[in-house]
């Protein structure tokens, strides 16, 4: 009887050992087949944001104002004529009321008009945007100064 009991325990021990060995073999196979021990990260290019911004800025510059001028043309005129600033602000605000990304209207944006890298006009509520969400476009100038329109958006 005692002999039989010891035989059962030994059988159980043998089973346990085989079980552990099989588990290790299983673990090795899983590891070799590229299992959970390899962490894979997929990083999308960080400039993607500014590409979207560029397209939005181009869309804005090409859009027509109430006098049928394009915003790029209005910006050229406004930079030379301080009296036109109010009209530029009104037209820009009206244009951005329809500014959407997906279904959501974007409230936080700005348009800056820069002359020789100095801001001469600010429109919009956003104070600062991250670097990849800022984009610029050069427009022709009546004077010989470098004229650039900058857009910042919180995407």
């Amino acid at each position: 009887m005692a002999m039989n009991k010891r035989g059962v325990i030994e059988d159980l021990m043998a089973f346990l050992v085989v079980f552990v060995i099989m588990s290790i073999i299983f673990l090795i196979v899983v590891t070799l087949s590229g299992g959970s021990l390899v962490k894979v990260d997929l990083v999308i290019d960080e400039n993607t944001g500014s590409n979207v911004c560029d397209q939005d800025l181009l869309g804005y510059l090409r859009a027509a104002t109430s006098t049928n001028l394009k915003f790029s043309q209005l910006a050229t005129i406004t930079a030379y004529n301080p009296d036109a600033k109010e009209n530029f602000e009104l037209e820009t605000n009206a244009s951005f009321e329809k500014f959407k990304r997906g279904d959501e209207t974007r409230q936080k944006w700005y348009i800056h008009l820069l002359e020789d890298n100095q801001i001469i006009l600010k429109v919009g509520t956003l104070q600062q945007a991250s670097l990849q969400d800022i984009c610029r476009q050069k427009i022709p100038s009546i004077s010989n100064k470098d004229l650039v329109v900058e857009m910042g958006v919180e995407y």
Partner: protein
Amino acid sequence: MNKRGTWLVYLAILFIVIIGFAAIFLKNFEAQEITFKTGEKQAQLLSTYTESEAIREYVKDSAQLAVAKTASIDFESGENCFANLTLKSFSPKVKDEFNILLLDYKSPRLTFNVDFPEYELRISNAENALITEGFGEDILITSDINGIKYKASAYFKEELTCLEYAEYLKVLKDAQ
């Protein structure tokens, strides 16, 4: 020790050896981090395309401004504002103004170089408007990154109406 007991000892030794190998194996293959950066070239291509669109806009706006600037010397706004315009003497002056504006272009996307072609401008008079057409070889855009080259069509056709001219004239008179 009976037969079964001996077998268990061998198994235990085997077990320890396997655990040892497994430990070495796992140490060599411990969690690796692999990072794939994707979309860099695609983003660059998209930027090239955006640059070409932006340049074409700049060219068109430059043509409009060049026409308005040249006309502002002799012509007032209003109905049929360009009716008395003599194209033969007008066109070369517009071309000069236009070329100055093109020379002034700098891409805000700093990795790009832009080569404009020698433009030929054809200006025609329409009712209440001047139509400017630009012809030339393609605009060449090259990028320092990835060596991307892109050719944008140089052709454009723009109309400056008397209404638009009136807006320009308000400031151009002051500029003279």
